[in-house]
C-alpha cells in the first residue's frame, strides 16, 4: 500500500481517474507462480545488459487479481500491465481508445454504444473476445442478483431515479435505483442505456478504465451455481491466465510478497493500430514488492530498479543525481482536516464563520513549503486550480490572517462560548479543548496535526489535544460510527479525498445530508444548507456543457465560502525514474496512460 496519506480512500474508480489506468503507481501483487527463472535479467538491474526490462518497485503486495473485487491501486496496476482497459483519458482530457475502439453517444445522453476491437483474443481455449463476453460479465456478474459474486463495483451500473422508468429494472427494494440496460448489438458492439440522461457517463470511471470482463465460458459455471467464492478462487482468474493478447505483457510469474514478472506480449492487439505497431517498448516488466522505503531508494540509486516513488523530504537529493530523474505529477487528492459537525462534535463547528476563522488561522502555504517541501499547492476548495470547474471569480481564498481569524472567531462564537484571558471557554468558564484525531501512518499527517495544534493555540487561543490512531480505527471507531458509540473527536486528518476534477459530480456523497450521516461519506455531518448535493445531482444530468460548468463553478465557490472541511493542500506525486527512461507524455493527472510507449534504453 502507498502511504496512507496520499492514497487513503483511493479505490479502483479513483485510481483510474487520477494516476492513470495502470500507470506508474508502485504497488504490488501476488499469487503462486512458476519457479524463478535463473536468467531473466532482473537481478542485474533494469539497465544492465541489453534487456529493456522495466522493474517497478511497489510498497505492498497485490491482494487480489479477481477483477470484480479489486479495489486497490497495487492490484489494479498489475492487471493493467496484462489487460488493457476499455479506454482511458489523456493529459488533455481526450478519450484514448484501448479495447473499445469507438463510442457513440445518443443525443439525449441516455444511450452509449461501444465498439470493441476485432483483434482481441482471450487465452486458449476461450477464443476471440466479443461483445457477448462484456455483456455477460456486466449483466450476470456485476449486475448479478443479490450481488452473488460480491463484486466491489455493483453500484456502477445503476443510478438513482425518482421512479423506475418502463423498460428498466429496479436495482433496490425501494425502487430508488434502476439498473442500466446493457445489450449486445453486434459481434463487437454493445449498448448501455441509462434510465435518465447521464452526460458525464464517459468521464465517470464506469466504462472508463473498465477491465471487469472475463471470458463467458470461464465464468459460466460459476454464474449458473451463483458461486462467488468459486469464481474468486478460480486459478485462471487469480493467475490472470485468461488475458491472451489483451495486454502489453503476458503474466508469467506471480510470486507472493516478491514479484510479478511479465514478458512482452508480441501478439498485443494494439499493435494493429496506428502508432502502436511496435508497442510495448519494453521487453519485460517486473513489479517488485519492496516494503521498505530505504531499500526502494537504495535500489533506484544503484540502478537495480527502474522506478519508485520518492518521498518529498528526499526529492531534492534525488533531483541532484545524474542517474535518477524525479518527475512530479499533480494529484487529485485533497489533504484536508474534517470538522465533526454531528451531535458529538464541538457545536461551534456548525457555524460557517467559525470554520472560516479556523481556516484563516492556519498558514497552509507553510504546510506546503515545510512539510510537503514545496511539492504541492494550497487548496481553497475541493477542486484543484487547474480544473476547468475552478472559477477564480467564485472561489473565496481565505488567506492566512491570525488577527483576522481571532476577531472572526470571537465575533461568531455561538453561545455559550466566548473568550476569557485570551482562551476560548465554554459557558462554565472552562477552557474548550478540541480532540484532534489523525491517522498515525504518515509522518506528514502528524506534522500537519502538530502544526495546526500550535496555530490554533497561538492564533485563536483554542486548545487542541492530539490523538494519533491507526487508520482503520479512525474510520471504524470515530468516523463511520454513530455518536452514541463513537469515540470523541472534533477534528480529523489523514483522509485524502478525491476531488474528481473531470467528473466532480462524483463528490455528491461527500455533502448529501441525511439523518444518519455516519453511515455515509458525509460522516462528519455537514448539513449542506445551500444544497450543494442537489446541484451536483442536477449537474450530472445537465446536457449543456456551459450550464454544467456554471453549476460546478458555483458549487466550488460555495464550498470555498462554507469551508465544510479545512481544505489544506493538494500534494504532488513524486515519481523517480532512472535517467534512461523517456516518458512520451506530459505530467498530468493521467500520468502513465501511455506507459507502454515510453522509451527505455539500455543503461551503460
Amino acid at each position: 500500500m502507498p502511504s496512507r496519506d496520499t492514497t487513503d480512500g483511493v479505490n479502483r474508480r479513483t485510481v483510474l481517474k487520477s494516476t492513470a489506468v495502470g500507470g506508474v503507481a508502485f504497488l504490488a501483487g501476488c499469487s503462486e507462480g512458476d519457479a524463478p527463472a535463473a536468467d531473466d535479467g532482473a537481478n542485474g538491474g533494469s539497465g544492465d545488459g541489453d534487456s529493456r526490462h522495466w522493474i517497478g518497485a511497489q510498497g505492498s503486495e497485490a491482494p487480489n487479481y479477481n477483477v470484480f473485487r479489486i479495489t486497490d491501486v497495487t492490484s489494479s496496476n498489475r492487471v493493467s500491465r496484462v489487460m488493457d482497459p476499455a479506454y482511458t483519458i489523456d493529459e488533455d482530457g481526450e478519450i484514448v481508445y484501448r479495447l473499445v475502439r469507438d463510442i457513440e453517444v445518443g443525443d439525449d445522453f441516455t444511450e452509449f454504444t461501444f465498439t470493441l476491437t476485432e483483434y482481441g483474443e482471450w487465452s486458449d481455449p476461450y477464443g476471440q473476445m466479443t461483445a457477448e463476453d462484456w455483456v455477460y460479465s456486466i449483466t450476470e456478474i456485476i449486475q448479478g442478483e443479490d450481488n452473488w459474486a460480491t463484486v466491489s463495483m455493483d453500484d456502477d451500473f445503476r443510478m438513482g431515479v425518482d421512479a423506475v422508468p418502463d423498460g428498466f429494472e429496479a436495482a433496490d427494494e425501494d425502487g430508488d435505483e434502476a439498473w442500466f440496460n446493457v445489450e449486445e448489438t453486434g459481434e463487437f458492439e454493445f449498448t448501455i442505456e441509462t434510465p435518465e440522461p447521464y452526460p458525464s457517463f464517459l468521464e465517470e470511471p464506469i466504462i472508463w478504465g473498465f477491465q471487469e470482463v472475463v471470458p463467458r465460458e470461464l465464468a459460466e459455471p460459476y454464474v449458473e451455481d451463483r458461486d462467488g467464492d468459486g469464481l474468486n478462487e478460480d486459478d485462471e482468474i487469480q493467475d490472470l491466465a485468461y488475458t491472451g493478447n489483451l495486454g502489453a505483457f503476458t503474466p508469467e510469474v506471480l510470486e507472493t510478497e516478491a514479484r510479478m514478472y511479465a514478458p512482452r506480449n508480441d501478439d498485443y492487439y494494439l499493435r494493429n493500430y496506428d502508432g502502436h505497431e511496435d508497442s510495448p517498448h519494453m521487453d519485460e516488466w517486473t513489479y517488485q514488492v519492496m516494503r521498505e522505503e530505504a531499500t526502494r531508494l537504495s535500489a533506484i540509486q544503484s540502478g537495480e530498479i527502474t522506478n519508485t516513488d520518492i518521498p518529498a523530504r528526499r526529492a531534492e537529493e534525488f533531483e541532484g543525481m545524474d542517474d535518477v530523474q524525479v518527475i512530479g505529477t499533480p494529484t487529485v487528492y485533497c489533504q484536508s482536516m474534517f470538522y465533526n459537525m454531528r451531535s458529538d462534535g464541538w457545536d461551534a463547528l456548525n457555524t460557517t464563520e467559525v470554520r472560516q476563522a479556523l481556516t484563516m488561522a492556519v498558514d497552509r502555504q507553510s504546510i506546503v513549503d515545510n512539510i510537503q517541501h514545496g511539492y504541492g499547492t494550497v487548496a481553497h476548495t475541493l477542486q484543484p486550480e487547474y480544473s476547468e470547474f475552478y472559477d477564480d471569480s467564485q472561489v473565496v481564498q481565505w488567506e492566512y490572517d491570525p488577527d483576522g481569524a481571532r476577531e472572526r472567531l470571537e465575533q461568531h462564537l455561538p453561545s455559550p462560548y466566548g473568550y476569557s484571558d485570551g482562551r476560548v471557554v465554554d459557558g462554565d468558564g472552562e477552557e474548550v479543548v478540541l480532540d484532534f484525531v489523525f491517522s498515525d501512518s504518515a509522518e506528514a499527517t502528524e506534522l500537519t496535526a502538530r502544526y495546526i495544534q500550535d496555530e490554533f493555540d497561538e492564533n485563536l487561543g483554542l486548545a487542541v489535544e492530539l490523538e494519533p490512531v491507526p487508520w482503520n480505527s479512525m474510520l471504524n471507531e470515530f468516523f463511520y460510527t454513530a455518536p452514541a458509540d463513537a469515540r470523541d473527536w472534533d477534528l480529523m486528518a489523514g483522509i485524502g479525498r478525491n476531488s474528481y476534477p473531470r467528473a466532480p459530480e462524483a463528490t455528491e456523497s461527500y455533502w448529501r445530508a441525511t439523518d444518519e450521516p455516519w453511515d455515509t461519506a458525509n460522516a462528519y455531518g455537514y448539513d449542506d444548507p445551500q444544497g450543494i448535493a442537489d446541484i451536483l445531482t442536477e449537474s450530472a444530468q445537465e446536457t449543456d456543457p456551459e450550464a454544467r460548468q456554471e453549476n460546478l463553478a458555483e458549487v466550488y465557490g460555495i464550498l470555498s465560502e462554507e469551508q465544510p472541511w479545512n481544505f489544506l493542500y493538494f500534494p504532488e506525486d513524486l515519481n523517480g525514474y532512472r535517467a534512461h527512461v523517456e516518458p512520451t507524455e506530459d505530467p498530468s493527472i493521467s500520468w502513465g496512460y501511455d506507459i507502454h510507449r515510453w522509451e527505455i534504453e539500455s543503461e551503460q
Partner: protein
Amino acid sequence: MKAYIAKRIAWTFFATWVTLTITFLLLDFSPISAAGAEFVDQQVQQGMDADEARELYQEQLGHGDTAWERYTNFMVGLATFDWGWSSMYSQPVVDVIANSWIYSFQYVFPATVLSVILGFAIGLYSATHQYTKEDYAATLFAFTGISLPNFWFAIMLILIFATMLGWLPTYYSTDVALLSLENAKQLILPVIVLSTAAIASEMRYARAESLEYVHAEFVKTARAKGLSENQVTIRHIFRPAMVPLITILVGDILGLLFAGGYVIEVIFQIPGLGLVSYEAIIQQDTPLVLATVLIPVFIAIIGNLVQDICYTILDPRIDFGDR
C-alpha cells in the same frame, strides 16, 4: 521414556488447540483491518451504506456469519488440512506457506548454524581465556552485536555494500535459482545481520555457562590426569555447559525466524514466513494467521521435546522414565 514421549505429544495437541483458540478469539474480536476499513470507505464514497459495506466485506472474506461458525470452520479446516483461503494473497493458505518457507529457511538455517557454532566456540574460548585481550575483544563484539538494531545495521550494510561499493544487490530477488552463486551472494547481508546479534547472544550464554566449570574440581582433576587442554575444554567444560545452553536453542530459532526474520525480510524484501505471518496479523487474515501460528507452536513444542531427549544423551543422569 516412551510413555513420557506419548504424553508430551498428547500435550502438544492440547496446547496447540488452546493457542489457536486464543489466537482466533483475539483476531475475531479485533477491530476491522486496514484493508477492510479501506474497502468500507471506498464503498461508502460510492454511495453504499457503511453497515452494508461492512457486510459486503465480510461476505467477500467468506469466513461465516457468526463467531462460532467462523471458529468451527477454521478449526475443522486446520484439523483436516484444509487451511482455507488467504484473503490477503488470494490463494490457498497452504500455497502461501509452501511458497514462503524456503525463503526463510535458506537464510535462517545458515544464520542459526553460524550463531550456534561461532557463538558457542567464542564463548567457550572466552571462558577459558578469561580477562585476556581476546576475551575483551569477544565481549566487545558481543555487546556491539546485541546493541546494534537489526533494521539500522541492515540499512547501513545495504548502503555500504550495495549502493556505495556495488558488490552486493540491495534487495533479495526471487528470479535467481535457489542453488546458485547469485542466490548465495544476495543472502550474505541477511545472514550477517541476522547472525551478528545471535552469535553475540549465544556467545554470552556460552561464556557464562562455561565459566561455571572452568574452575570446577572435576576439571582440575582432568588436568591433573594429564589430559590435553582441548580435551579438558571439549569434554569436561563444554559438555556439561551444553545442557543449559540447549534450553535456549529452540527459543533462539523461533526468535530468529519470526521476530528477527520479519525485520530482515522487510528490509531485504525476502518473501519468507516472517514477513507473511506479520502481514497476516496486521491485515487480520485469520486463516493465514492461524496456519502461521500453528508452525511456531509445533516447532516450540516438538523442539522442547527433542531438547528434553537431548538432555538424557548429554547427561546420562537425567532420566524421564518415571514421569
